C-alpha cells in the first residue's frame, strides 16, 4: 500500500513531464522554472533544517562507546570505536560517513531449535548501502560535466575511472549499474522482508522509486535513445550560469529525468534523506568519551529541588545518635 502510493506519485510525475515536454511554455516551466525552484527549496531547506538542529543544545555528552575506554596507561584503548580526543572523534566520524562503520557490524539473529539463538554475519545491507551511496556520489560528480565549461579535472578523472571497464559504446559507467542494482536491492528487501515491509512508510519507498526512475531514464537516454547531448549541455550551462535558455530538440525522456531529479531535490530537506546532514550531528557518534576528564556544560542545566544533608540529619538525628554515627548538630 505504502509502496503503491509512492509508485503512483512517481508515475504521475513521469506523466506530467511527458505531457509537458511537448509544448514550449510547459517545457519552459519543466526545464527552467522547476529546476530553479527545486534547487532553491533544496538549498534553503537544508540550511534551515541544519540550523534548527545546530541551534538545539547538546545538554549531555552521550557517546555510544563501542570499544575499550581510555583509562589506565597499560590498558589498550580503542581510539576509533571509543575515541576520547577530537582527532579520534573525527576519525570515528570519517569511518562512519565514508565506510558506514556501524552498518558493517550488522548481524542477523536466528532462533533455532533448542531453543538456541545464533548470530550470523550479515553484510548485505552494508554492501548495498555502500554501493548505493558511492555510486550516487559518482553519478552526481560526473553530471557536473554538464554544468561546467571547461570540465574540471576531478570530474574528468571521475568520468575516466567510472568508465574504466570500457564496455559498450558509449561506455557503460559502473556507477550507473551500481546505483540501479543497489537501489533495486534496497527496494527488494523492503518489499520482500515482512518485518521491513511492516516498518516501511510511503516516505521510505518514494526516494527509491524516484532514484530508480532517475537512473532508469538516465541509462535509457545514454544507451538506448538518441539524446541531443549538445542541447542538454546548453540547457544545463544556461541554468548554472544563471542565463537560462531552452534549446530545441530535447526529448520527453529528458524532461522526465529532470522532473524526477527536481522532485528528489525539493523533497530531500523534508524527508529522512536529511540523514546526510544528521549523521554529522548525532550526539552518540560525534562526541568524545572524555566525560570524566573534561566537564561538559549543559546550557539549560536547571536548579532542582534536592534533599540536603541538613534536612536529612534533622529527620534522622536521634537515630543517628543512637547508632553512634557522627553528627553535625547534637540533638536537643
Amino acid at each position: 500500500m505504502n509502496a503503491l502510493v509512492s509508485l503512483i506519485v512517481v508515475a504521475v510525475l513521469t506523466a506530467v513531464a511527458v505531457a509537458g515536454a511537448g509544448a514550449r511554455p510547459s517545457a519552459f516551466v519543466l526545464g527552467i522554472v522547476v529546476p530553479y525552484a527545486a534547487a532553491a527549496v533544496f538549498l534553503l531547506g537544508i540550511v534551515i533544517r541544519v540550523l534548527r538542529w545546530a541551534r538545539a543544545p547538546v545538554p549531555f555528552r552521550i557517546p555510544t562507546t563501542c570499544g575499550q575506554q581510555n583509562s589506565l596507561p597499560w590498558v589498550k584503548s580503542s581510539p576509533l570505536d571509543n575515541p576520547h580526543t577530537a582527532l579520534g572523534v573525527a576519525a570515528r566520524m570519517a569511518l562512519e560517513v565514508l565506510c558506514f562503520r556501524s552498518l558493517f557490524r550488522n548481524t542477523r539473529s536466528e532462533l533455532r531449535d533448542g531453543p538456541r539463538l545464533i548470530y550470523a554475519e550479515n553484510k548485505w545491507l552494508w554492501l548495498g548501502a555502500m554501493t548505493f551511496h558511492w555510486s550516487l556520489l559518482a553519478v552526481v560528480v560526473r553530471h557536473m560535466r554538464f554544468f561546467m565549461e571547461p570540465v574540471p579535472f576531478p570530474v574528468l578523472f571521475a568520468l575516466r575511472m567510472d568508465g574504466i571497464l570500457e564496455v559498450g559504446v558509449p561506455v557503460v559507467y559502473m556507477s550507473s549499474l551500481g546505483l540501479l542494482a543497489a537501489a533495486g536491492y534496497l527496494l527488494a528487501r523492503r518489499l520482500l522482508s515482512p518485518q521491513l515491509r511492516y516498518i516501511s512508510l510511503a516516505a521510505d519507498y518514494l526516494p527509491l522509486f524516484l532514484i530508480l526512475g532517475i537512473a532508469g531514464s538516465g541509462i535509457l537516454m545514454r544507451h538506448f535513445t538518441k539524446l541531443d547531448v549538445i542541447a542538454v549541455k546548453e540547457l544545463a550551462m544556461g541554468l548554472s550560469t544563471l542565463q537560462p535558455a531552452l534549446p530545441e530538440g530535447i526529448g520527453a525522456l529528458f524532461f522526465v529525468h529532470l522532473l524526477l531529479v527536481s522532485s528528489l531535490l525539493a523533497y530531500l530537506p523534508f524527508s529522512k534523506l536529511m540523514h546526510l546532514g544528521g549523521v554529522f550531528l548525532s550526539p552518540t557518534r560525534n562526541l568524545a568519551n572524555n566525560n570524566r576528564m573534561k566537564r561538559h556544560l549543559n546550557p539549560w542545566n536547571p536548579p532542582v529541588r534536592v534533599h540536603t544533608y541538613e534536612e536529612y540529619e534533622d529527620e534522622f538525628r536521634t537515630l543517628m545518635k543512637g547508632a553512634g554515627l557522627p553528627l553535625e548538630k547534637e540533638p536537643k
Partner: protein
Amino acid sequence: MTEPKLKPDEVASIDYVVPPEGWTRTLPDLRKGTFNYGANPKSAQYLGLPNPRAWQPMEADWKLPPDWQRIVLEGLRERLSKYRSLQVFMDVCVRCGACADKCHFYIGSGDPKNMPVLRAELLRSVYRNDFTAAGKILGSLAGARPLTIDVIKEWFLYFYQCTECRRCSVFCPYGIDTAEITMMGRELLNLLGLGIDWITTPASNCFRTGNHLGIQPHGFKDSVDFALDDLESIFGVRVEAPINKKGAEILFVVPSADYFGDPHYFGFLGYLALFHEIGLDYTLSTFASEGGNFGLFHSSEMMKRLNAKIYAEARRLGVKWIIGGECGHMWRVLHQYMDTMNGPADFLEAPVSPITGTPFENAASTKMVHIAEFTADLIKHGKVKLDCSRNDHWRVTFHDSCNPARAMGLFEEPRFVLKSVCNNFFEMPENTIREETFCCGSGSGIGTDENLEMRMRGGFPRANAVRHVHEKHGVNLLACICAIDKATLPPLMEFWVPGVQVAALHELVGNALVMKGEKRTGDLRGQPFAAEKGGKKDA
C-alpha cells in the same frame, strides 16, 4: 499460587510473524506479566510529581488530567528545543531495520513494536503529526498519527519494555539511540503521572533516606556491622569500615543492594576486605548510601535531584576524591551526567591512588573512579596477594552490563581483575559481549515480579549465551559489575540455565585475597574452598 507457571519452552516458542494490518492499527495489549504497576501516589506526592493518584495500567481509566494532550505536546515541544539528540533522532531514521533484531526484547518476544525502530516510531509518528510540515499536510501518508489515549497506552507499554540498554545504537548507521527516545517518552508519560511504582518508590526512598531501599542511617550502620562480623568469621581478622568519617581521603559510594541484597553482599564483603588489606583511608556515607539512581529511568530532573547528594556529601566530609562500586546504571549517571549536572567538583582533587601513586587521568574532572579501575591498578602493581585457586570451585564467565559497556567502554579492567583472581575464565560468544552485550532484560527499573514474563523474554539472549558456555565449558558462575544484574540474573539463570550462579566481581577478588594474618575458613559465601574439598590446586 494459582497463577500458571511460566515455562521456558513456551516462552521460547517465539513468533516473529508480523500482523497483517499496519502497526498503527494494532492496539496495545496490556497482558499480565508484560508491564509494571503504576506508581504509589504517596511516593509520587513525596517527590512532588504531577497527578499523584491511585491507578493501575490494567484499569480502563488512567485518570489523566483533562488537558493531557496539551501537556504531552507542550512537553514534546520543550524537549525538542532542549535536546539536539531528540530532534536528530526524530528526523533521520531511514527505517533500514539494522537495529531491529538487535533488541533483546524483540528477539525474546517477536513483537514488532519491540524493534527499536518501531519503538521510536511510536513517538516519531506523533512528532510528525504535530511538528512537521509533511505530517501536518499528508497525515498518515507521511507516517503521522494523532495523539490519542491508545497512543499513550502504547507508549506506556513499550517505553517500559525498553531497558535503555543502547544496544540498538551500536548498530544504527546514525547512532540513533532508542534509549534516549525511551527516556524522552518516559519523561512525557511522567508529566501525566504515568510513572511505574518500581521507579517512583525507590526514587522517593532515595530522596528521603539517601538510598532506594529506604534504609535509614542506623539500619545502614547495622548492615555494615553485620558485614564486619561476617568478615571476621571468614578471615579471622577484625576489619574496620568507617562511616560518615570527616577528613577521610576517599568517599566510597555503592549501590544500596550491595549491603542489603544477595549475591551483591558478597561483593560488598570483597570491597571491605580489599580496602582493609591495602589500608585505604576511606569512608562510607549513610547520606550518600546509594550510587544507583532510579531518577535516570524517570527524568533528567529526577536524576539530578538524586545525584546531588554525592558531591554534596563529598564536600561535607572533606574527602579528596570518590570511588564508586559495582553498578551499571549508576555508572551511566556518574560517567555521563554527574559532572554536567552537579559539578564542577572543583573542591575535590584529581584522583591518585594512595597505594600505587597512579593518577586516574580519565577521571580528572569528575573525580570519581570505578572500583574495577581502582582494583585493576592495584593488581597490576602487585599490591595485593591473590590466590586464584580459592576460586577453583567456580568456572566463570563475565557479563558486560549495558551501561559500563556502551556508555563507558569498561571492558578490559574487569576482565583483567577476573583473570587475576580465578583460574577458569571463559568468554561468551563475541556477538554477546562487550559493546554487543545483551541486557539482563530487567534494567531501567522494570525488574518487577509483575513483569516477569517480559523479563524472561528480554533476558533470553543473555541467558542463551550463558547456556552456551555452561554446556561447552561447564561454566557455573556469571560474574558481573551491576546491582540490577545481581538482582535479576539469578532468576533469569534459574529459568533458562539452572546451575549457574551470579556473583560480583569483587566477591571473586575477596575470595582470592590473601589477607595478612588471616585464618581463612572458606570463601565469602562461607563455603569451603575447592582445594580443601579435594579439588585440584593450581600452581
